[in-house]
């Protein structure tokens, strides 16, 4: 299997030899073959360690599990998707960088209904999906618990309130963090609340040039808090985000992107 994989990566065998079901799933998920067929169709799929998913070793809150999906080790990523094999809703989100204006990276919080593989799949311009992932150990219930907002009679007063910040970095990329108040109801909760979730963020420079699109689904945690690595123009004084939920509500955010923000330092310790 490893030989096939390595050969595929070197382009020595035709892509059709590495369909997902031909290579054993490193996470040994019972549903992987079905999920892969449904998600990737006939496209070539390889398991690739350069696509990294980071989750904590312990889950504190099944409704708010921090996850990073990172395919920055690959060139020419056209799309990055996050999947959870054993969640009732498997497709978590898709990020599509606009013309290399964003890196293949996203951090966010995930709801999980039970312990599950969490995967990222990066589509490169040659049409191959590169899949990496980890198994997330946890007790369940994150998808079928009502949103915290449902315990707050005034939740509509804060619905859509957005907070954010841009950190410009020396290498020309910028880190964008955006948090929007939203219950992100899955429709599966015991209180019978229908699905109600933000389904899209269009991230643009101040001039309107697209940087990235993030499509989100029900498993993204309440009050979605995402971190992206984007490449705005030096002249962009802000990053503008147009969001929309499945009930047609519109959320517009303008995040200042000045040059005088302190850059990320290389180490976080000391």
């Amino acid at each position, binding site marked *: 299997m490893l030989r096939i994989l390595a050969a595929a990566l070197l382009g020595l065998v035709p892509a059709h030899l590495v369909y997902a079901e031909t290579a054993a799933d490193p996470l040994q998920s019972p549903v992987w073959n079905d999920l892969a067929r449904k998600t990737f169709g006939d496209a070539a799929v390889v398991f690739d360690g350069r696509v990294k998913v980071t989750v904590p070793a312990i889950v504190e*809150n099944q409704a708010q599990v921090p996850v990073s999906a990172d395919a920055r080790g690959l060139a020419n990523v056209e799309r990055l998707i996050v999947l959870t094999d054993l969640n009732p809703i498997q497709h978590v989100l898709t990020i599509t960088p606009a013309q290399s204006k964003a890196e293949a990276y996203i951090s966010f919080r995930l709801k999980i209904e039970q312990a599950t593989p969490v995967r990222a799949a990066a589509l490169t311009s040659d049409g191959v999906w590169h899949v990496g992932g980890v198994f997330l150990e*946890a007790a369940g219930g994150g998808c079928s618990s009502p949103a915290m907002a449902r315990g707050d009679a005034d939740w509509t007063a804060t619905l859509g309130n957005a907070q954010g910040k841009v950190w410009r970095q020396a290498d020309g990329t910028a880190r964008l963090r955006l948090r929007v108040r939203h219950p992100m109801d899955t429709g599966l909760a015991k209180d019978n609340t229908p699905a109600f979730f933000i389904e899209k963020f269009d991230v643009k420079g101040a001039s309107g040039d697209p940087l990235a699109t993030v499509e989100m689904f029900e498993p993204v945690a309440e009050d979605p808090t995402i971190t992206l690595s984007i490449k705005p123009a030096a002249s962009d004084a802000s990053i503008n985000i147009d969001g929309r939920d499945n009930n047609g509500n519109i959320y517009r955010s*303008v995040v200042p992107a000045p040059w005088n923000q302190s850059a990320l330092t290389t180490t*976080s310790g000391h």
Partner: protein
Amino acid sequence: MPVTIDTPPDPHDPSDPQRRQLLRLAAAAFVAPLLPMFTAHAAPLTYDLKPVKLDDGAWMIGGRQEAITFENGGAIANITILDSSEGAIIIDTGPSRRFGEELATLARTLTGKDIARVYLTHFHPDHVFGNQGFEAGKIAAPAGVIKGLQELGNGFSDAMYYIARDWMRGTEVILPSVTVTEGIEDIGGRRLRLLPRAGHTGADLALFEEKSGLLIAGDLAFLDRAPTTPHANLATWRNTLDELSAIDCKLLVPGHGPAESSTRAITQTRDWLTAIESIIVRCFEQGLDMTEAMQAELPAGFASIALARYEFTRSVMHLYPALEASKLPGVGKRSN
């Protein structure tokens, strides 16, 4: 040199997985030829509680300096038993029904009397899920502990069953019937100063027994084991620690870690809280995401503290959301 009272060395040292594996294999090899049909059935689980004497008529059952695992059955918190002329006084009941029942039997054996009173220091499951070993009418806790257990108990129960599995068999959430308020309670010659405080959770109980000079701090104090923060308010916690450090105690029993004649547990807990808060705030201000902040370097001095990385990781998850909510600038509102 301060006096340290710790748990005796454990022959099944769970910190050594290789040894554990060997023991398990050896046990399996020994049993297999004898019971070919029943090898899948383990011996009945037992906590085999080992009381350590703290003082005349006072014992501690030391918790393992570990996270809750199946191997330790959740027995990670310190439990205190005090003798009195009216009966045994128990502080915290442990992680499961099985533990609570073994604890009640042990307390009756040690004191030769029935149970007079059970106090709960806070609502975390490793301290209160043994309540079924006792009459609810004998169990006392501050109102906030009762409320917290009522609200969060079933969620804790799910997590405990998931991790500790068969150790939890038959365990249910039992709420205390007696509400503790600030003051002194005399029970059979024991004089207990009850100190309902907060910080580790929204409702913590520390007890100072004036006759013996024992300060039982619950999880307001940890020693040589990283403090946990899922329901903590760090500023309140530090204030409470300042107050506790002024008590002239003979022996301090932390919620986790050895009992000592010094107040090292208080100092260490406060230092830990201050350090992790400053690291986490700095990570946040640098723009790091939670999964990156979890990998931040920890001070060298933390190397001797059990579960330092594990609890730091948890604390990132506990503290980051509040930082985001309070410190990220507003950038937009709903537009329709």
